[in-house]
């Protein structure tokens, strides 16, 4: 599950990590593992394939190479297009759905790392959650009991997410000092 979610945003995450300066492949992997990998470190293969996709899309460029060759020995730097891609990704709220927190967490940390406003990001996400909750509330009002119960289920989950968002927002200062440490 986590892998799938990561797969969807691993490119943006690596791009974001590059924003603070050019890095080698193995550096990127270590930085990623430290902040987001937890018990599931990235494979070198994942880093290699992701970087080559980003290279092909012109979001990164090769900044230099160490002797010995191999993708992990290449030094990557982010391009202008790469920075605006990260911008877009961070500004875009995630579709409210279950088990979203890993992506959101990644986004918050990256925003903090890249000096973007994490609070704005959370607000945008909250607005998106609320938008969906309004739709569900409205649907519930029109629907029968079955609709109501199903909508309620979704509403309670969304509410839990929102609470997480609130809590995170309240702890942003603490998080930013830890992330930057």
């Amino acid at each position: 599950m986590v892998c799938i979610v990561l797969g969807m945003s691993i490119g943006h995450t690596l791009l974001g990590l590059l924003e603070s300066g050019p890095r080698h492949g193995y550096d990127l992997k270590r930085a990623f593992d430290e902040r987001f990998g937890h018990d599931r470190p990235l494979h070198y293969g994942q880093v290699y394939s992701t970087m080559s996709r980003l290279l092909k899309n012109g979001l990164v460029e090769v900044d230099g190479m160490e002797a010995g060759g191999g993708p992990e020995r290449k030094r990557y730097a982010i391009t202008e297009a790469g920075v605006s891609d990260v911008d877009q990704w961070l500004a875009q709220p995630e579709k409210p759905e279950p088990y979203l927190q890993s992506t959101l967490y990644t986004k918050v940390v990256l925003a903090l790392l890249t000096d973007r406003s994490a609070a704005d990001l959370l607000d945008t996400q909250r607005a998106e959650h609320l938008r969906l909750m309004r739709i569900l509330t409205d649907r519930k009002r029109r629907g029968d009991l079955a609709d109501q119960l199903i909508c309620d289920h979704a509403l309670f989950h969304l509410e839990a997410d929102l609470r997480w968002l609130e809590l995170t927002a309240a702890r942003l200062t603490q998080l930013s000092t830890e992330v930057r440490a």
Partner: protein
Amino acid sequence: MTPAGSLLTAQDLHKTYGPTPALDGAFFSIHPGEIVAVMGPSGSGKSTLLHCLAGIVRPDSGTITYDGRELSSMPDAERSSLRRSDFGFVFQFGQLVPELTCVENVALPLRLNGVKRKEAERRAAEWMERLEVDDLGSKRPGEVSGGQGQRVAVARSLVTSPRVLFADEPTGALDSLNGERVMELFTQAARSANAAIVLVTHEARVAAYSDREIVVRDGKSRDLEFTV
């Protein structure tokens, strides 16, 4: 610039209680018939914003405009009279007068406006019927459940046909089911009366009854309706 067509707007409000700023640059607007949720963590200044908007508290600086009139510079008597005629209120608790019967509680704002007792209680009974508490008329608040009491309070807030309703955590003391029922009846009644609601809540499911939300954090709030 203030959003066009809005009924009540607040611009760059500041308010300090003692050493702590409760509002530190708050913006807000609401259109006729609109329901706007005011959200934010506790202590963020939500309630202070509501009190300022309702003319209960005068902000230290900033402007509040209601229907083209400047609220923050009005004298107390004029603001009180505005609250009696144009605004309605629902609070979390402590709002029903315990010694008055439910129907007298609902009739109270009308009586304060000088409506004769009979007429006031007749209109109160109508609103109680719409909120499905018409059977509680002669009971005292101590004798009804929390949900019923809150519905009586909602009936009371609507009885003067106000243009803006202020609700501060209206379901805060209720369980989910009762809270939902109250919100359901409240928003329905307000929409049919074309009354706007300023809904202060920290609960997302309550805020979901709104059309739009405004988040207050550390006394600051932004309103996207304002073109900066």
